[in-house]
């Protein structure tokens, strides 16, 4: 069996609102699947259905062959989960939190102690293991949550935006651990709204919007999509015709926001040079220029104009 997570037609309806709409995909053994989408796309709802917290309105999901609805305990035994917002018990120390997590997965005491030591050292929490979690920084708390989710050596891991608003060190540690786990054969379902993170960390990326899967491919194959959505934002010392800039090589379209012009392009570097040339030739000064990088919103603009892809996410 090469699919560690198998999802078929998963659907969640809140009253009349379809939060997740007929989503199908699989996560293979040893794979990191990025689940990318803007706020409210249905990422958390999907993860909660896959981890047995929410009942799906329709569809089916198997984790290591166990159906999450008909055999929730069996499916949960071998998964590790970092929910979107989760805290350790603030009144308990890191060691106590780890022990509690281990007991919930039925591990014997000796195993809990060995795993706790290993994980707390690795996440740089060992020195502070007897401090209560209340005294930890946000990043330390999140590292502790990840350590707790790994205590039973799960072969499937679900992470819901685990690095959102974390410090660089914690982010690096979490990324490193995710790579290492997938290298050792774990399947990872990694939710994020950060394109760059999906790009560097994931073997494949699923893109979800308004509850629907709109693309699923390797970052490499999605690159043209991501690249298409890059842009250069420029402003000049006097008003300039947007159409003139749109005519420059490599510009796909132009938007005007106040005194700033938003030029979309697959090659922002080359465009900047061309803009410099243009400014010299037209005797205008560039007041500001920057490249904001691809944003999800823009990816979706290019995805929905690319109908060939939005039809078949698989």
């Amino acid at each position, binding site marked *: 069996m090469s699919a560690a997570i198998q999802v078929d037609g998963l659907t969640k309806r809140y009253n009349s609102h379809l939060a997740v709409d007929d989503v199908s995909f699989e996560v293979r053994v040893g794979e990191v699947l990025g689940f990318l989408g803007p706020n409210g796309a249905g990422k958390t709802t999907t993860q909660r259905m896959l981890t047995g917290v929410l009942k799906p309105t329709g569809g089916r999901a198997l984790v290591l062959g166990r159906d999450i609805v008909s055999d929730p305990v069996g499916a949960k035994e071998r998964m590790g989960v970092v929910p979107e917002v989760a805290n350790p018990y603030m009144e*308990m120390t890191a060691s106590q939190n780890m022990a509690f997590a281990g007991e919930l997965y039925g591990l014997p005491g000796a195993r809990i102690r060995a795993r706790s030591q290993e994980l707390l050292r690795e996440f740089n929490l060992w020195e502070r293991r007897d401090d209560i979690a209340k005294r930890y920084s946000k990043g330390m708390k999140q590292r502790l949550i990840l350590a707790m989710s790994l205590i039973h050596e799960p072969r499937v891991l679900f992470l819901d935006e685990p690095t959102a608003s974390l410090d660089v060190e914690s982010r690096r540690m979490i990324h490193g651990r995710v790579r290492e786990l997938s290298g050792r054969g774990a399947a990872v379902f990694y939710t994020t709204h950060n394109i760059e993170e999906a790009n560097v960390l994931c073997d494949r990326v699923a893109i979800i919007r308004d509850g629907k899967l709109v693309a699923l491919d390797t970052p490499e194959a999605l690159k043209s999509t991501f690249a298409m959505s890059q842009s250069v934002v420029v402003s000049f010392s006097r008003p300039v015709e947007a159409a003139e800039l749109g005519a420059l090589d490599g510009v796909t379209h132009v938007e005007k926001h106040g005194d700033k012009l938003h030029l979309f392009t697959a090659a922002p570097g080359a465009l900047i040079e061309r803009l410099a040339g243009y400014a010299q030739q037209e005797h205008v000064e560039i007041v500001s220029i920057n490249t904001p990088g691809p944003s999800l919103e823009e990816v979706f603009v290019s995805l929905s104009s690319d109908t060939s892809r939005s039809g078949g996410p698989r």
Partner: protein
Amino acid sequence: MMRKCWAIAKKNIRIYYLKGPVLIFGILFPAFLFLAFAIGRNVPAGSLVPGLIGMALFFTASATTPAILPFETRTRTLERLLVAPLPLSVLIGGDVVSAFLYGLFLSAIPLAISFGILGAVVTRPVALIASIVLSALCFALMGTLFSTPPTDEPSAIMTLANLVRLPLIFFSGVFVPVSAMPQWGQWLSRISPLTYTTELLRAGIGQDVQIGPWWCITALIAFSVAFWSISMALHRRNMCRRLAL
């Protein structure tokens, strides 16, 4: 699964036994209520005993469970419990166990007062023990029923719990024995589980009773089963709504 249940209970003991609302409504509140009633009244000391022990059990055993779920919702520790490999019954069961032990341990205080100071004498130990153990269980389960509304406000649940508990103590044989109540009071007393506690306690220390010990035991078990079934059904329905809070 027993180990997982105990792990939950142990966590509750560590965190919730000393939380403010639990201490206030589980210990201080019934203590003052009882003092307010007992002081300055000219009644034989022994007649206070069933009310004292019964009321203590009633408040302490039902004090922790209403606090736990709202706190876990607010502190965002709940979802990690829900993704753990255990059925909801084990999760709630762990809460019940910790509440049961709270009631059991703290009943030592009124028991010491009753037998040490008020001079009560045990005549039927089985009835006494059954009343303490079954009542602690029954009221712990009543507490889980209070905790079913999906909220992250411990104080809202505490208010709800008191809205139910306070009226009940006035017709449950706490201050006035069931046998001394008017007819309508006696009828009313039958719907309160606390009545069976105080009657069973009276049987245990050789006082007059209106309801036989076996009836009391049966009633306490029946209330426990009902509280458990209803609260599990409600928890199953409401648990995931807490995540949206």
